[in-house]
């Protein structure tokens, strides 16, 4: 078993917890800790079976002794300490953490049989339910509503993302390059700060990366589960999953043998995505309303591009990521494999879609960009780091 599979299985376990909460709520009609705990006890062994079915990648085995766990811990202790400090600085998280994600979990916990009332109260638009389900699942174990579980969930997700970047690269590039990718990702000021905000964006970043790595390694069923969990994590995750799966279908493989297990995995998660979406009604604030009228507004396009460069590309809080990543990718473009090409194209399409959505938004356009553009880029940042460093040549190699 490779270390990367541990980082994948931990994400699968979080997904399983969210699924258990979803089914227990819909089947028992209320928050029921006894059912949640029993279901965990019964279902968690399934993950061990799934883990055993994952074939160890020979390239991982070749480098496993090189990438020592001790080195990993040594370098990342500082960053985990920083992350915990950021989390402790804001124990209730940033605005959307308590106003949306933790509020939903609170409501599930407190409302008893009327928990479905929350489905008709969508001040933040119709967002999916992964994070509230996961937090409520945690409270089923702790027995009370506390702030420790959301804080721990944020730390866990961030550690998983970092681990997945480093060990996902292991066997693809040398030990030093893989560690450098992880160190650079952690050094990005916005990465750790926003990861600590208790928003769902860190889970979008995790499941996107997990789905991509799972697919590259041929773990198609597991990858299907991660694509599904990506859809369950946030609306942007749904768009990413659709764009990337279409791109993979068109650009990499149409083999039924590969797609069948992937679609089965995806189908396992989709009920928890679609059922709440179908039941949610009302969007009183209408913050997500868009209109085609604005698509021809050149002033808005210009404002967007200007804002994008000021805030993201040259934003200090991004630590140069959006300059370095395109530069390195362009420098080593001859090393791109088919996955890199397809994923980069999909990310470009994803950004164009959201650029158009920003331009088309009916509500305050400037406000919308200011509050959410960084978050959107955050969701794809770990994948960008992964793709950039995956194509970084070893010092000994030519080209």
């Amino acid at each position, binding site marked *: 078993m490779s270390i990367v599979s541990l980082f994948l299985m931990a994400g699968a376990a979080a997904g399983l917890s969210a699924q258990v909460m979803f089914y227990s709520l819909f089947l028992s009609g209320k928050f029921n800790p006894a059912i949640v705990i029993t279901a965990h006890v019964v279902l968690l062994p399934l993950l061990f079976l799934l883990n055993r079915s994952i074939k160890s990648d020979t390239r991982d085995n070749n480098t496993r002794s090189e990438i020592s766990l001790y080195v990993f811990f040594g370098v990342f202790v500082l960053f985990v300490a920083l992350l915990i400090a950021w989390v402790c600085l804001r124990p209730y998280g940033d605005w959307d953490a308590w106003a949306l994600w933790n509020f939903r979990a609170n409501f599930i916990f407190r409302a*008893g049989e009327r928990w479905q*009332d929350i489905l008709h109260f969508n001040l933040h638009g119709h967002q999916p339910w992964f994070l509230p389900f996961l937090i409520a699942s945690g409270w089923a174990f702790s027995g009370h509503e506390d702030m420790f579980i959301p804080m721990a969930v944020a730390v866990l997700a961030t550690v998983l993302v970092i681990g997945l970047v480093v060990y996902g690269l292991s066997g693809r590039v040398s030990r030093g390059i893989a560690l450098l990718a992880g160190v650079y990702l952690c050094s990005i000021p916005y990465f750790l700060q926003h990861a600590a905000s208790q928003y769902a964006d860190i889970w979008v970043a995790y499941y996107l990366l997990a789905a991509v790595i799972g697919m590259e390694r041929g773990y198609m069923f597991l990858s299907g589960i991660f694509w599904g969990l990506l859809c369950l994590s946030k609306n942007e995750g749904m768009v990413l999953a659709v764009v990337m799966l279409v791109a993979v279908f068109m650009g990499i493989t149409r083999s039924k043998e590969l797609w069948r297990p992937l679609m089965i995995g995806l189908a396992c998660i989709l009920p928890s995505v679609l059922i709440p979406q179908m039941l949610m009604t009302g969007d009183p604030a209408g913050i997500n309303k868009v209109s085609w009228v604005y698509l021809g507004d050149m002033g808005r396009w210009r404002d967007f591009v200007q804002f994008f460069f000021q805030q993201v590309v040259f934003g200090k809080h991004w630590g140069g990521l959006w300059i370095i990543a395109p530069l390195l990718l362009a420098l080593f473009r001859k090393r791109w494999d088919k996955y890199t090409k397809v994923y980069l194209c999909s990310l470009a399409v994803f950004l164009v879609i959201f650029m158009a959505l920003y331009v088309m938004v009916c509500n305050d356009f400037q406000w919308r960009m200011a509050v959410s553009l960084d978050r959107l880029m955050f969701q794809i940042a770990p994948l960008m780091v992964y793709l950039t460093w995956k194509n970084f040549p070893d010092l000994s190699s030519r080209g």
Partner: protein
Amino acid sequence: MHSGSFKKTLIVLIVLLALVNTGGQICRLLEQKSSLSSAHPYPGATFLSLRPGLKGVPMAGYFTDRTSTHPSTDVGVMFPYQQAQYALSPTLLDYYHPFAYEWTVFNTKDGIKLVRNKAL
């Protein structure tokens, strides 16, 4: 083709950038730590006194005297409203129809209070 020294230079530059970024992060963290009070107030703590009055009430209105041309994206309106919502959950507060329910949470210059709507 890229020479070994070119790649080494790139790596050194990235390591330096990572060091600068990390140093900046630590400074920012220390700045924020000193600017925040050690106590972390519960979001909407000021509304908690209304909780007993709303026990068993599924929906209530929310009224503020702060006017805004764009309330849905106005921090001055939405921040206290959503804090009230968080604190008073599982009672759902309706900002858009404040007087359509038996109870209304008032958040005005005069303070915070719970008012029973006698017309209903």
